[in-house]
């Protein structure tokens, strides 16, 4: 470790893996945890308090669907009392009357609401939940009525990439301050469904042009954050802003992880909050130190002038595609196997089913534990 250890700024808390939706690109692991594995209220509050002591300024409350936790108001209040900025990341389906107002009263700073499509038929099909689009619209209206600032999150793939202009109109009509056009990252369930989700290059380029024009047109009206598609990239993303550099996440059972997909790296062992303090895990956990800084890097990363710009990219993508978590992210043009990204994209597109007939592996407990399990047909 060459660089000094910095305190973490951000934390993603996956409060539960339970969710009413079954999106085939969910970033949760394929092995979902049941409710009886979740931390209790007091343990989450202790963890949040330690996080604040450690220097965490922002907590993203996510899942699964975090509003399924009946103690969410209490958790928000606990964070708020410590001055931590709270961001609720919700699917916005099935939130009981009065609860959004209660979140706001507890001190919630911001609400991020996902839309699987800009059209009701797309939202309902991708989340495999009939009527979900209508419920999301209602959640957006209730959030704004409660005075909460709103971000619309649109995960983008082959089946909704042509809806990007409609996503922009939808976010404007819902009075959102921000819109995230987030190309799906192929880890977790998205990796299992990669062939069913991958867009083609022409669509990706059209989308990039549309977003660039909208950003210019909407300066001062709505912010658009664009999560670019890795498989069409020249340089990789600085995943998590660098492994264990200023952010981490916690799984529903208290396992502390450097990122969403870190458990797909078989050589790493992770620790649980409670067995050790958060400060000890952040500083000393071998999994956190495995890819911290630049010392671990191989060529071409090691001597690359961008090594502290993109930090080698995504370790989990290196694991998934190069078979080596310490390899250069294959999304990088300098990776010796960069061409594999195009090969995988072509292979995915060659198998594309006619629109509307895709048989996704829908995200649910027990659907699969292996990415190569044959797909079940969609039940719609």
């Amino acid at each position, binding site marked *: 470790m060459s660089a000094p250890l910095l*305190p973490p*700024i*951000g934390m993603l808390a996956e409060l539960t893996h339970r969710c009413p939706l079954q999106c085939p690109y969910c970033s949760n692991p394929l092995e979902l945890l049941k409710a009886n594995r979740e931390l209790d209220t007091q343990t989450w509050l202790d963890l949040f308090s330690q996080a604040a*002591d*450690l*220097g965490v*300024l*922002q907590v993203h409350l996510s899942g699964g669907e975090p509003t399924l936790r009946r103690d969410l108001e209490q958790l928000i209040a606990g964070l708020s009392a410590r*001055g931590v*900025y709270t*961001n609720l990341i919700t699917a916005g389906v099935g939130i009981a009357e009065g609860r959004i107002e209660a979140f706001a009263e507890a001190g919630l*700073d*911001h609400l*991020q609401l996902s839309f699987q499509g800009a059209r009701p038929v797309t939202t309902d099909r991708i989340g495999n939940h009939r009527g979900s689009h209508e419920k999301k619209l209602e959640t957006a209206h209730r959030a704004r009525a409660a*005075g*909460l*600032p709103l*971000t619309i999150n649109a995960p983008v793939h082959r089946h909704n990439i042509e809806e990007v202009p409609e996503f922009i*109109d*939808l976010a*404007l*009509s819902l*009075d959102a*301050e*921000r819109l995230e056009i987030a190309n799906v990252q192929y880890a977790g369930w998205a990796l299992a469904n990669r062939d069913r989700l991958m867009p083609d290059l022409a669509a990706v380029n059209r989308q990039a042009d549309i977003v660039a024009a909208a950003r210019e047109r*909407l*300066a*001062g*009206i*709505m*912010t658009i*954050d664009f999560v670019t598609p890795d498989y069409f990239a020249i340089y990789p993303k600085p995943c998590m802003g660098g492994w264990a550099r200023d952010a981490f996440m916690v799984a529903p059972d208290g396992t502390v992880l450097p990122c969403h997909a870190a458990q797909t790296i078989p050589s790493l062992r992770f620790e649980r909050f409670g067995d050790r303090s958060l400060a000890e895990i952040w500083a000393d956990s071998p999994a956190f130190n495995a890819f911290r800084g630049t010392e671990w890097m191989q060529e071409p990363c090691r001597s690359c002038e961008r090594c502290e710009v993109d930090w080698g990219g995504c370790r989990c993508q290196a694991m998934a595609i190069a078979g080596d978590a310490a390899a250069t992210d294959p999304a990088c043009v300098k990776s010796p196997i960069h061409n594999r990204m195009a090969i995988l994209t072509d292979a995915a597109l060659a198998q594309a089913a006619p629109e509307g007939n895709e048989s996704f592996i829908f995200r649910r407990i027990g659907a699969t534990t292996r990415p190569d399990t044959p797909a079940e047909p969609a039940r719609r």
Partner: protein
Amino acid sequence: MMALRERAIVSLRSAPSLPRHVRIQYDPVRQAFAVLSPEKVFWPNEISLDILRRCDGQSSVERIIADLAADYDADPQDVAADVVAFLQEWSDKLLVKL
């Protein structure tokens, strides 16, 4: 569908404020002031912080410029250009309300 809001342009009469989703907070761990917003944390320099702290929804841009020029013993014309450019940039990112 039409945009419901319009882009705000800084004028000397604007009375800027921080929107609800943005706040300035002292961080005792790093011993510095942070600006917290939905997905980002900013670490403003001293001058930026002095501008943002005056965004109270009461003080006009004209007043903010005069105050800063006095505090920094600087030419109000130079301060005006910097303050207007800063506020327009932050307003365009929806981090300041005009």
